[in-house]
């Protein structure tokens, strides 16, 4: 017998009230010295016993009334009234997270969990229904409905496996509640079998658990929640591939890309893989030796790769198999889009027959030193900008353009806001006042910073200004920050526009400064795109930057940086929707997605913000998502293939367990019981609940008792006969 509202039991104290009143009444009798004792005694002798019985009967009734009322209010549960009452719906939640793949000996934790689930199935009675949920980021039931067919459940259980995903206790419970809502039986039981990994329990997130408590309160039968934490037998040895990174997001076929793979030791013991392998699109794996990594340590393994074909690719890194206890985090994926070309429109404000006098001559040469380079510059005059089809370009460079028409300015702003890039390199032809008026617009325009008058003498070339190179962290300058490898420090700038330093929070920032502190390179985010602006032109007029080897690198990095917002996102955080953007010309009517574990999902194409997209909301499984859809031609063989990846959450590799205080908190919040011992869980399951609330019966009994009490009191008091007349005697007045 249990109580849903045990605190009310304090009210049982009130049961003593009638007894106390009774005793006080008896104790606080008045004393009367009485003469006519003989009549009293005669009466007492005959009636006292009956009176006493009446008295005790009323006392009992009143006490019982209070006791039963209090019991009713405390909502008691009665157990095992009969077999029928003990019928229950049982949901077994198997933690299907990556950490459950931890192997200790031949069996993984998931195998042990599955065995425990089987054992749990055997404790059930035929009248019990059961559902099994694999607890991941998107918990899924093995069978869609609660089932009475044990064989079917066991078969489904045998097929179940852990995933790359993380366990999410709240979602798993939510899913379990959804199944229980359809249950038929008066008792509900949820058994969570997990490794007790802390990640995924959200012990500090009270909102989630409040939600759970609310959902639970809505259930027709409050489930009993038990958690079986499978104990690990020793320290965990695990190396995890936590990260694959490319230095930049724009990758072409023109040159090598440096890929870094981070290997982290997340277990409590060192050891594990000795090699990490690296393969692009799953082909031609390359091996690299691993140094010893102590617990908690990490190492970065670099690889160089040149992509030969544009389009979607993926990189997969693997650690040696069977070297540590968690195999699933021995893989990591990275998806990327290799560009065929990166068209850049160079608007040259200094049209001149002499190549060296043109404002874009050096930039053009730097961006496309050989034809196979991915950046494809096109040079136009300012007049040509008006007629250029901007949609063909990813980046526009305004090189010493004196003035822009209002129409061009508006087009450029739309161009940037749509996610493209703009590089502004003002020179001698630019009037700061005019730029400020048309492009700065008090911070609302395209200019990242307000222009001030130029300083320095370009003709005399005396007292050159230099670039300040320490502490450079910006993406465009990463390769140039190392003074040993970069000759950027040798740059001499004779004249430059002073740029007002952007205020913090304005959306603009200084990327590179002169040694005097004035900004040399500033950036601004505008819409989805970016704008970069230099304080000097990128030609030979005001500086010798064009002569530096670094100029080539810097030019490319700036263009890549400006172009990167529109590079398709191929690496998706777990749980974020996978959005496939289709070209308008694609003939596809649906998109097929091959899921990481197995299965193909066909997604409809919809229109969002004017673009054709297909969205896969459920990306909780880590791994590779292979997307295919029909391309431009009607040829069925013209298929577009795109790779998207969702990686194991790095936290999932963190093998630390729920602390005692966290368990206490969970015990309190949704009322969970934690077990580490199967025998106790078995005893609990076998004993069953068979619980049933019976406060209604108690309430009815209370009313009956009340009626009886009132009736008896009336009956007894009628005998008291206060209306009986006294004895007529003498001349009584």
């Amino acid at each position, binding site marked *: 017998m249990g109580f849903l509202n045990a605190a009310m039991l304090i009210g049982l104290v009130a049961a003593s009230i009638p007894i106390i009143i009774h005793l006080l009444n008896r104790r606080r009798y008045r004393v*009367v010295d009485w003469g006519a004792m003989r009549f009293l*005694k005669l009466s007492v002798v005959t009636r006292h016993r009956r009176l006493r019985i009446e008295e005790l009967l009323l006392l009992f009734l009143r006490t019982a009334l209070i006791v039963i009322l209090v019991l009713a209010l405390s909502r008691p549960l009665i157990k095992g009234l009969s077999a029928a009452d003990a019928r229950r719906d049982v949901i077994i939640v198997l933690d299907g997270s990556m950490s459950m793949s931890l192997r200790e000996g031949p069996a993984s934790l998931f195998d042990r969990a599955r065995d425990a689930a089987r054992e749990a199935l055997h404790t059930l009675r035929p009248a019990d229904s059961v559902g099994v949920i694999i607890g991941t980021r998107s918990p899924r039931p093995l069978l869609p409905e609660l089932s009475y067919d044990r064989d079917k459940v066991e078969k489904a259980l045998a097929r179940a496996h852990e995933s790359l995903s993380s366990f999410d206790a709240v979602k798993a419970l939510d899913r379990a509640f959804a199944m229980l809502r359809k249950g038929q039986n008066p008792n509900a039981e949820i058994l969570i079998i997990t490794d007790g990994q802390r990640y995924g329990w959200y012990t500090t997130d009270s909102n989630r658990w409040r939600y759970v408590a609310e959902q639970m309160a809505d259930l027709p039968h409050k489930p009993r929640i038990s958690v079986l934490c499978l104990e690990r037998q020793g320290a965990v040895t695990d190396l995890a591939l936590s990260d694959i990174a490319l230095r930049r997001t724009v990758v072409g076929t023109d040159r090598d890309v440096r890929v870094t793979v981070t290997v982290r030791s997340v277990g409590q013991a060192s050891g594990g893989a000795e090699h990490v392998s690296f393969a692009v699109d799953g082909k031609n794996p390359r091996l690299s030796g691993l140094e010893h990594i102590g617990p908690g340590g990490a190492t970065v393994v670099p690889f160089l790769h040149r992509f030969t074909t544009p389009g979607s690719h993926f990189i997969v890194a693997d650690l040696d198999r069977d070297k540590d206890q968690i195999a699933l985090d021995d893989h990591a994926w990275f998806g990327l889009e290799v560009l065929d070309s990166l068209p850049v429109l160079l608007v040259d404000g200094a049209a001149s027959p002499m190549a060296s006098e043109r404002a874009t001559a050096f930039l053009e040469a730097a961006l496309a030193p050989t034809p196979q380079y991915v950046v494809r510059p096109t040079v136009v005059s300012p007049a040509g900008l008006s007629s250029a089809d901007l949609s063909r370009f990813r980046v526009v460079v305004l090189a010493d353009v004196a003035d822009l028409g209002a129409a061009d300015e508006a087009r450029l702003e739309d161009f940037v806001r749509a996610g493209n890039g703009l590089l502004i390199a003002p020179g001698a032809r630019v009037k700061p006042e005019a730029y400020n008026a048309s492009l700065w617009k008090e911070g609302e325009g395209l200019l990242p910073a307000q222009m001030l008058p130029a300083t320095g003498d370009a003709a005399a070339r005396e007292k050159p200004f230099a670039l300040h190179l320490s502490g450079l962290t910006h993406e465009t300058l990463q390769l140039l920050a190392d003074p040993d490898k970069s000759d950027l420090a040798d740059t001499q700038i004779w004249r430059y526009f002073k740029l007002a330093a952007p205020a913090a929070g304005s959306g603009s920032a200084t990327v590179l400064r002169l040694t005097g502190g004035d900004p040399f390179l500033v950036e601004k985010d505008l819409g989805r795109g970016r704008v970069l602006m230099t304080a000097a032109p990128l030609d030979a007029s005001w500086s010798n930057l064009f002569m530096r080897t670094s100029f080539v690198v810097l030019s490319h990095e700036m263009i890549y940086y400006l172009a990167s917002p529109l590079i398709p996102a191929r690496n998706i955080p777990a749980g974020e929707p996978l959005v496939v953007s289709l070209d308008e010309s694609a003939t596809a009517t649906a998109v097929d997605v091959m899921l990481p574990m197995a299965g193909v999902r066909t997604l409809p194409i919809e229109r969002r913000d004017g673009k054709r997209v297909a969205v896969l909301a459920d990306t909780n499984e880590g791994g590779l998502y292979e997307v295919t859809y029909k391309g431009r031609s009607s040829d069925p063989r013209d298929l577009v293939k795109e790779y998207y990846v969702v990686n194991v959450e790095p936290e999932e590799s963190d093998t630390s367990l729920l602390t005692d205080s966290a368990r206490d908190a969970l015990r309190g919040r949704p009322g969970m019981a934690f077990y580490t011992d199967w025998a106790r869980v078995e005893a609990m399951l076998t004993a069953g609940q068979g619980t049933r609330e019976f406060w209604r019966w108690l309430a009815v009994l209370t009313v009956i008792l009340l009626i009886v009490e009132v009736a008896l009191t009336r009956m007894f008091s009628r005998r008291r006969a206060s209306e009986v007349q006294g004895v007529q005697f003498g001349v009584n007045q």
Partner: protein
Amino acid sequence: MTDAGLFDPKVLGKFANLELIGRQVFEGFISGRHKSPFKGFSVEFAEHRQYTRGDEIRYIDWHTYAKTDRYYIKEYEEETNLRCYILLDASGSMKYAGRDEMSKFRYGSFLAAGMTYMMLHQQDSVGLVTYDTKVRRYIPPRSRPNHLHVIMKEIEETEPGGESELADVYHELAERVKRRGLVVLISDFFVDPAPLLGALQHFRHRKHEVVLFHVMSPDELTFPFQGWVEFRNLELGDDRIKIDPSRLRAEYLERVKAHIAELKRGCGNLRADYVQLSTKTPFDYALARYLSSRTGRGR
């Protein structure tokens, strides 16, 4: 309790009042409407004295006249034809007073005092017996005026207590009181009626006139108690009973009624006068009622 109030002016005023009424009624009673069965019987010779005018001729001792040729009047010790014995119950139960009533004993004392006063004024002789289980004090009837003080003092000094055992006492007294007279019983009669009536029969057998003044407290007649009450026996200290009186009321009253009815019936059979007096009843009214009932009987 000492019923010291007996002589306080207020109570004496009450007595004076009583005396007036008593005398008025009593004169009628003496002067013929009431036929005394004891006429001349109780005359006891005391001395002779010379006849003077105004003496009744019938009291002249003709024998002495024959011897001495002088008129002598025979003086009697008590010039009365009534001997009255007031039997005042001084048992514990008479102590009961109720909430703001006087106790039954006090009431009975007043009654006895009033009667004594009245009767002595009539030159009747009055005796007093106080008793509980046995006779405590026996004061033989006298008609001397100062006898009043003897009786009053006795009443005043009597402290009620002890059990009632009326029947035995009455039997004893019936034996002891040789000369016929009026026996006035003042008691609550909380005893078994049968033996009591037997004792009264004894008095009647001895040719006594018997008057029962049945004194009860209004509480005893209405039993108005509420809530748990411990009733302690006034006669026996260790006899107590805790009850919820409201439950017993009807039954109790039935029993009291039956008891009174039995007494009344018994008295009727014995031709004894039975007068019910609650302690609220005014003495004068009570006495008058008794006296009128006596005269009304035409004796």
